[in-house]
């Protein structure tokens, strides 16, 4: 798979080879409304505040829009396990025409831009800039609507997603600090409009003398362009929009509010590598944004995240202390926006829903986060409600396990050992060098404390239901509780209790041990059943047909219903299907065909002597039919051909099945058993297992008590 992607933007006209064409995407912001068109919309900003936006910011907005669109239109590799994730990373070549060519071509700008984006989305970036030909008016694509009178001149722009963290940020700015701010919201879906409006009204009621300004931005494109859902570059467009609005207002400060645990987003399990865990507000990304915006604006530009050292639980408490807890119910954290309905604003199983619910409970604010708004109860319901049950189980199990592991870590260096990804953030944290790692550790420790306290609390609350086993087996509380109940599959005997030689069914697989060695599992395969039957009658030559039929019957018994299988005659040793069908034609008939053919040959000779060519041709067709019949019935040396020898088929199939199990499974787990079976098993119509040493096997199936 080719990872190179060529993105031709606007009026740029690069010369690409024909091989590149198949990996080329064309995008434009200006011009006609076709399938390649991207639309940006910024609502509710006063026209009187509008001033000419510098060319570099207009270029930056173009670049960010194209990067975001290319991110969504170019799928990442799906078969990432086979390639160790190599195809997850794309190699983007952007061809973009810009207004300030010298600036964008400078080595410093390219370095900051490419490094920041590469770390943000885990892709490779290469920008080829050219001079813009047609300078469109800025307003033609930034669509302003202006219905609201602005209250105070804002001091900074604050990104406002509508989740708990950003609500906490708005409360901190507007209610606690009384700062005049402009809240910029990126509209992901129209579904959230009503809730957003409610949140905005509520926030305004809390900020009586310090009403914040609000701006909503929308980026859309044709649905056919949505081919990759991961959207790792989203925050680049988001911060660019915020910075452009800040520039229009004469400001140079954009603020994110996101809790530090999500900001660092350390991997919850081993296969979450690189950008698999988003780096939206990672300290290195925030630093990169700040460096880029400083270059673009030509003066110091600040991008920061004041909640970097806080957990979500602490943010929820901050909201509560400011007497704004009623805002929590209308905040939306769920990322599964397609599942949001009037009744359920949260799915209850995505990572954000899990994190939110734990944080709210840790802060003791469950009264402000009604359980009814979740499609499922995170703690007590089965994950089987989810379409992606396996992914969701993996997510919540690893979320809990990470909290448990952090709880057991006793120092910052052990934390660094366990989560080396934290090293990528340390140089960019606003703290003295020696204190950075301990503070990260403290924050994760606080978070794990919150998670574990919530689990303890919920276990106490649902203790009876757990004990009575009335909760679903895969509900969160059941899997963290050590019930010590017998389980149906992994019934396990201690090694000392296990006989020296074991070959027996255990659930759908087989438990095997040889000469006191280590027990291992052989997966269900018909050959294993054959071996089991041989081992059960050592020294006895057993008909292969009998074993095969017996195994088939056993298989049917296992899969269907024993009674049905018996009624269908599948256990019979004398299955008529297995008998030879005998010769295709008997010898007498063949002799008659031959006589008839000789007669016809004589007639052909006579017709040819009479120059009767028509008759010759007719007789030749007739004789051909006889010969054909004879040839299909008679083999070399005049022996009559037999139909398929079913007994031979069974004999071969038996041998192949047994050898396959020995070579593909047993040999890898215990080569001495593979050698033993190969040496002491003979095949043929009557296979036999005859060990010289009179070895005895435990063959009865594992039964759970």
């Amino acid at each position, binding site marked *: 798979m080719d990872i190179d992607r060529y993105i031709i933007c606007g009026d740029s006209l690069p010369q690409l080879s024909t091989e590149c064409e198949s990996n080329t995407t064309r995008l434009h912001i200006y011009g006609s409304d076709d399938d390649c068109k991207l639309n940006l919309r910024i609502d509710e900003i006063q026209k009187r505040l509008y001033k000419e936006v510098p060319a570099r910011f207009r270029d930056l907005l173009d670049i960010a829009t194209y990067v975001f669109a290319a991110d969504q239109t170019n799928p990442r590799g799906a078969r*990432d*396990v086979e*390639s*160790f994730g*190599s195809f997850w990373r794309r190699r983007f070549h952007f061809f973009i025409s810009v207004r300030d060519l010298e600036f964008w071509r400078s080595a410093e700008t390219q370095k900051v831009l490419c490094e920041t984006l590469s770390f943000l989305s885990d892709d*490779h970036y290469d920008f080829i800039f050219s001079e813009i030909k047609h300078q469109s008016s800025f307003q033609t694509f930034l669509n302003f609507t202006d219905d609201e009178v602005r209250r105070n001149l804002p001091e900074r722009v604050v990104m406002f*997603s509508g989740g708990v963290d950003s609500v906490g940020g708005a409360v901190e700015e507007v209610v606690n600090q009384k700062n005049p701010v402009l809240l910029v919201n990126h509209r992901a879906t129209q579904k959230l409009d009503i809730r957003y409006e409610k949140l905005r009204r509520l926030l305004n009621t809390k900020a009586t003398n310090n009403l914040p300004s609000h701006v909503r931005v929308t980026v859309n494109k044709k649905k056919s362009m949505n081919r990759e859902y991961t959207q790792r570059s989203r925050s680049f467009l988001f911060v660019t929009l915020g910075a452009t609005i800040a520039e229009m207002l004469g400001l140079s400060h954009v603020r994110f509010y996101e809790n530090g645990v*999500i900001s660092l*987003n350390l991997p919850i399990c*081993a*296969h*979450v*590598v*690189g950008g*698999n*865990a988003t780096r*939206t507000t990672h300290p290195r990304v925030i630093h990169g944004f700040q460096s880029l915006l400083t270059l673009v604006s030509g003066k110091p530009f600040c991008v920061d995240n004041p909640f970097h050292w806080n957990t979500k639980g602490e943010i929820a408490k901050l909201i509560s202390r400011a007497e704004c807890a009623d805002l929590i119910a209308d905040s939306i954290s769920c*990322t599964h926006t397609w599942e949001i309905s009037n009744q359920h604003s949260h799915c209850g199983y995505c*990572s*954000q829903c899990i994190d939110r619910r734990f944080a709210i409970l840790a802060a003791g604010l469950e009264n402000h986060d009604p359980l009814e708004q979740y499609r499922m109860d995170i703690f007590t319901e089965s994950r089987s409600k989810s379409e992606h*049950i396996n*992914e969701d*189980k*993996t997510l919540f*199990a*690893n979320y809990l396990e990470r909290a*448990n592991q952090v709880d057991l870590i006793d120092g*910052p*260096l052990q934390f*660094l*050992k366990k989560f*080396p*990804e934290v*090293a*990528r953030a340390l*140089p960019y944290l606003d703290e003295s*060098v020696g*204190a*950075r790692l*301990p503070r990260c550790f403290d924050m994760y420790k606080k978070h794990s404390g919150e998670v574990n306290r919530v689990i303890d609390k919920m276990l106490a609350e649902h203790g009876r239901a757990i004990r009575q086993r009335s909760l679903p087996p*895969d509900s969160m509380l*059941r*899997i963290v*509780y050590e019930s010590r*109940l017998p*389980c149906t*599959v*992994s019934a*396990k005997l201690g090694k000392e209790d296990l006989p020296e030689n074991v070959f027996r069914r*255990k*659930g759908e*697989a087989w438990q095997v041990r040889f*000469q006191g060695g*280590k027990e*291992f*599992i052989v*997966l269900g395969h018909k050959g294993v059943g054959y071996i089991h039957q041989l081992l059960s009658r050592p020294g006895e030559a057993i008909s292969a047909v009998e074993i095969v039929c017996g195994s088939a019957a056993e298989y049917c018994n296992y899969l269907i219903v024993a009674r049905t299988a018996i009624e269908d005659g599948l256990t019979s040793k004398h299955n008529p299907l297995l008998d030879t069908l005998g010769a295709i034609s008997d010898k007498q008939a063949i002799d008659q065909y031959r006589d008839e053919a000789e007669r016809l040959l004589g007639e052909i000779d006579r017709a040819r002597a009479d120059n009767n060519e028509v008759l010759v041709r007719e007789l030749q067709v007739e004789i051909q039919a006889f010969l054909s019949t004879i040839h299909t019935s008679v083999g070399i040396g005049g022996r009559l051909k037999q139909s398929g020898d079913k007994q031979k088929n069974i004999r071969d199939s038996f041998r192949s099945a047994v050898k396959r199990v020995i070579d593909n499974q047993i040999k*890898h*787990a*215990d080569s001495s058993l593979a050698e033993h079976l190969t040496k002491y098993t003979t095949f043929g119509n009557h296979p036999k297992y005859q060990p010289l040493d009179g070895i005895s096997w435990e063959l009865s199936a594992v039964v759970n008590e």
Partner: protein
Amino acid sequence: MGHTRLGALPRTRAWRDVVQLIAAGADTAQVAEATIRAAEKSFSFVQDDCGYNHAVWLLTQLGLAGRSSDPVGYLREHGVNIPENSSITEVVVGLSEALDNATYQEITRSDLGDLAQRALCDAVVTRMEPKLQQQSLFDTRADDIKAALSDFSKEKEFAHLSREFYSRLTCESMNYFLSRTLATHLGDGQRFATMNQMAEFDNALETHCREASKIVEQYSGEWFSLHVYQEHGAISRDSVQGFASWALKKINDELRVGANANGH
């Protein structure tokens, strides 16, 4: 914000066997052996991975730095940005950054490089931490770090460092595949009735991987000493790449026979 992309195992016969073995209660050695067999294609795909190769190269630079009178200066000259009065944390940060800087624009970059970054950081902390006083971990004197780095030039110490690296790398690689499926076997009536049982399996797997990585320990030390001698104190990239390929293959082979060796 804060999304995490989780993956699943391919639906090939080999991977289905791995899943079935877990479900049926196979022990870690057998699961590891089946995983290595199923992952054969993955490992062959990344045999030239730039991240992994650069991590091994940095490992050797730690050993070579120890031979220098100014180990920190040596590392800085070789792309590892460490301040003069650094701590273990800053050594780890410097190595992590050096790895990222060397690979972020490379085409042959895969997840193995990220797993190698984890392994390198872990190995350095594991080997350096005991050498330094507990009370000065975050404010170490330059001489302490210098002394700790100098030790890596010794054959035995380099062997230990290499062993730690491959132990974590093996475990991470194994979990890279298995963490996609293990938690799906959670719940009463399944392989892991509770998370404690799953944690026991994880611990056993870690021990198994650690044992498998022992095979590189002695060889690493000998290889390092030999090449320092043969190449006059500067081991070439080609030599490092050869060692990296050998070590990965050797551990994979060890895991393949691991289940068998444990049997008898």
